[in-house]
């Protein structure tokens, strides 16, 4: 089955996720879709699989124009998508999960389903026990179940969105083998969405690279890695000249820290950050940098190693002690973790004043709010509820709420979604804080931002942290290699 996507546009409010993307995927091939986070890969695939409709553009399957209004319509036409998080019911058995998808009879035929599940499993060498609960499976096994389910539904085009995140190496080998068999023997079209160069190199016949919602290149594999890196991250600009930094004493010290989570465990992370220093954390989303940052803020449980702030042991200290020591964390998802929907700016100002009096002086809080609004150029009023502000103004409001004289400032994607002017203005504020002796740690998907503003850079890949690199003399290309898990 051949799929053509022609001039696909998709906007989310002011954000343009796909801006005229055209890709053709041939039957019997494995097509890689490569790009950074936020490049528009998942949006494009969701348009193809009926999850959302494109604003504009044409989708053709075997030359016929189609328009899906739901994933069910897409799968009926033979297009199935495997999501980053498997869409299953953890507390049902494998068999019931499998049957739920396509046996719409009032009393499902379990015997037939079991036979079909077994024969498909044998064919693709997936060893799944039909009576096991899905909750007891690894992510890799849940993926296998999902693939079988899609095939049983008649999928001839299989989309896999970052399928190798969180699965073991043998499972990966097996998955790749299955995908090859599906393409070469069964003539399916396989779309492999990834940001990992190595996997794309190993598996794909053809690659399309997206950046900021546009196609920046297409190539037959094999293709030199340097060419792919350039298409993914763009040409590197020479980093700006920065005045030499006066490094103060060590503010944050991590020694051999282990931070466990369901998906990924960060292990053996060690780092020292000095007062007045800016350290950039590079890496693709979910490589461990967010966990690391949250652990530095006291928001993540640490199972081994130690964390010191200004020489005071803080490894197992509760979050509020981190706040008391002058640590501040600015999360990326502003309306989920940073601001509170339904509360006004004045209420936010009163709320962050943790040492404030029990009886709130609303007149004073309102005045304080207007002062901060003015200083941080927030387009809004003290009575504005935060969700009424635009994204850039929410970010400014979030910064306006930070207390003065911080020791450690942790910033997650501080300028994501902001225009160039706002980005520069916001970094001016951060650099001013650095001069007052605040240590700054930030993550960003924009390598130029990291190279421009960081003094040192650490790169995360699969939960491992690289040794710190000096930003001066490092190029976008070198970082691109490290981020994609290759030695430079």
């Amino acid at each position: 089955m051949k799929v053509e996507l022609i001039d696909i546009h998709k906007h989310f409010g002011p954000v343009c996720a796909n801006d005229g993307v055209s890709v053709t995927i041939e039957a019997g091939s494995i097509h890689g879709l490569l790009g950074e986070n936020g490049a528009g890969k998942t949006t494009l695939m969701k348009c193809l699989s009926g999850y959302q409709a494109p604003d504009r553009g044409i989708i053709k399957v075997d030359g016929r124009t189609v328009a899906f209004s739901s994933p069910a319509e897409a799968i009926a036409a033979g297009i199935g998508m495997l999501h980053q998080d498997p869409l299953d019911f953890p507390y049902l058995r494998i068999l019931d999960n499998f049957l739920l998808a396509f046996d719409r009879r009032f009393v499902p035929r379990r015997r037939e389903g079991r036979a079909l599940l077994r024969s498909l499993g044998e064919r693709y060498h997936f060893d799944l026990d039909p009576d096991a609960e899905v909750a007891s499976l690894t992510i890799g096994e849940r993926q296998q179940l999902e693939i079988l389910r899609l095939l049983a539904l008649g999928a001839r085009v299989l989309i896999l969105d970052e399928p190798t995140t969180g699965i073991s190496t043998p499972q990966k080998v097996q998955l790749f083998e299955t995908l090859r068999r599906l393409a070469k023997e069964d003539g399916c079209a396989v779309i492999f969405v990834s940001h990992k160069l190595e996997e794309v190199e190993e598996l794909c016949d053809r690659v399309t690279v997206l950046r900021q919602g546009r196609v920046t290149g297409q190539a037959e594999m094999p293709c030199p890695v340097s060419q792919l890196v350039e298409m993914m991250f763009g040409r590197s600009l020479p980093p700006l000249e920065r005045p030499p930094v006066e490094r103060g004493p060590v503010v944050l010290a991590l020694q051999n820290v282990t931070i466990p989570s369901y998906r990924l465990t960060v292990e053996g992370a060690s780092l020292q950050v000095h007062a007045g220093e800016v350290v950039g954390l590079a890496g693709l989303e979910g490589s461990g940098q967010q966990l690391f940052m949250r652990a530095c803020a006291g928001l993540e449980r640490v199972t081994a190693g130690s964390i010191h702030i200004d020489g005071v042991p803080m490894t197992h200290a509760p979050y509020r002690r981190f706040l008391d020591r002058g640590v501040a964390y600015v999360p990326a998802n502003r309306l989920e973790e940073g601001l509170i929907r339904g509360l006004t700016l004045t209420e936010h100002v009163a709320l962050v004043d943790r040492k404030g009096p029990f009886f709130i002086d609303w007149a004073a809080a309102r005045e304080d709010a207007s002062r901060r609004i003015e200083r941080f150029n927030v387009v809004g009023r003290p009575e504005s509820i935060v969700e009424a502000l635009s994204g850039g103004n929410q970010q400014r409001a979030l910064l306006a709420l930070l207390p003065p004289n911080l020791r450690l400032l942790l910033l997650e994607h501080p300028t994501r979604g902001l225009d160039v002017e706002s980005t520069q203005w916001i970094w001016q504020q951060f650099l001013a804080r650095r001069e007052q002796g605040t240590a700054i740690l930030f993550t960003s998907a924009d390598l130029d931002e990291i190279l421009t503003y960081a003094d040192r850079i650490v790169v995360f890949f699969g939960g491992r942290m690289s040794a710190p690199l000096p930003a001066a003399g490092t190029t976008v290309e070198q970082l691109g290699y490290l981020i994609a898990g290759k030695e430079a």
Partner: protein
Amino acid sequence: MLKKVLLGLIPIAGALLFTTLILVAVGASPWRAYGNILAGAFESPEKIADVVAAAVFLVLCGVGMCVTFTAGQWNVGVEGQIILGAIFATWVARNVPWPQVPLLTLMMLAGMLGGALWAALAGLLKVYGKVHEIFGGLGLNYAAQGLAIWLIFNPWKPADGATMSGTDPFPEPAWMPTLGHLRVAPLAVILALVATVVIYFMLRGTRWGLELKAMGKNPRAAFVMGVPSTPRLLAAFAVCGMLAGLSGAIRCSARYGRMIPDIAGGQGYLSLLVALLAVSRPQWVPWIAFFFAAVGVGSPRLELNMQLDSTLGGVLRASVVLAVLLTNGARMLLARRRARLRGNLSAEEV
């Protein structure tokens, strides 16, 4: 402003229309039915006093529930908290041989303590046992009911044998004085109004109230901003339980003069509806409670004069609540749709 008032009247008109249709369907005259309810509630000073006395319990529990609603918690355990308040107050009434003023004071304080402890238990189950507060609250309601019946049938059984009509009457000083021959206790009314005013200012003017509001709207962001979530959550439950327990103590002291098995009498669930209508605004609670109490006191008249079932009053109350919730839901949907048309929603909200 006028538009807002008119919008607020839509659900009430809708609910009246719905009950009117039911009345027409069973062949009764709607005018006569509503007239009977009104007359049943307001025809004499005695009736009005009954309405006020019934409203007191709804005000206390409803105002308490505004606190837990603000903190984003569904405290459906109010029924059990009323019972525990009554149990604690009964213990004091039976065991402390003091004169009236100190005894009543101690009974009210004991009632507040009992309700607060029972509510805090629901909070502890939620925080440390990961039991959702709705399930914890319902379970504790049954436990409280069982405890009350056990006490009445065992340690507290009257000399001439235990019955569902409860314990022996309290000694004279444990009765809350009523206004002449009317069945309303002025002290209870004062306590309910004081509670309303205090909670109003607590929620509106203090850090504590602001922190509860922040937690209710976004617990994660509130935590990141440094709100001590666990103590605040437990305190919200305890304050609500305190007021529910107080209403339980008042019920057994002023209304029954003894402990009975059905001491809560569904007031906990009814006040949940009151708090839902008030949308966590304590200043609205007394008015809504008064309306609910009037319908409750007035509807038995339907049975006497029109051979209609008195549960029609319940239908009227419930349809007002449903109509208000429905209008709010519809308004929210419309607002979202308008926002989406303007393209103002971000990706994750679509």
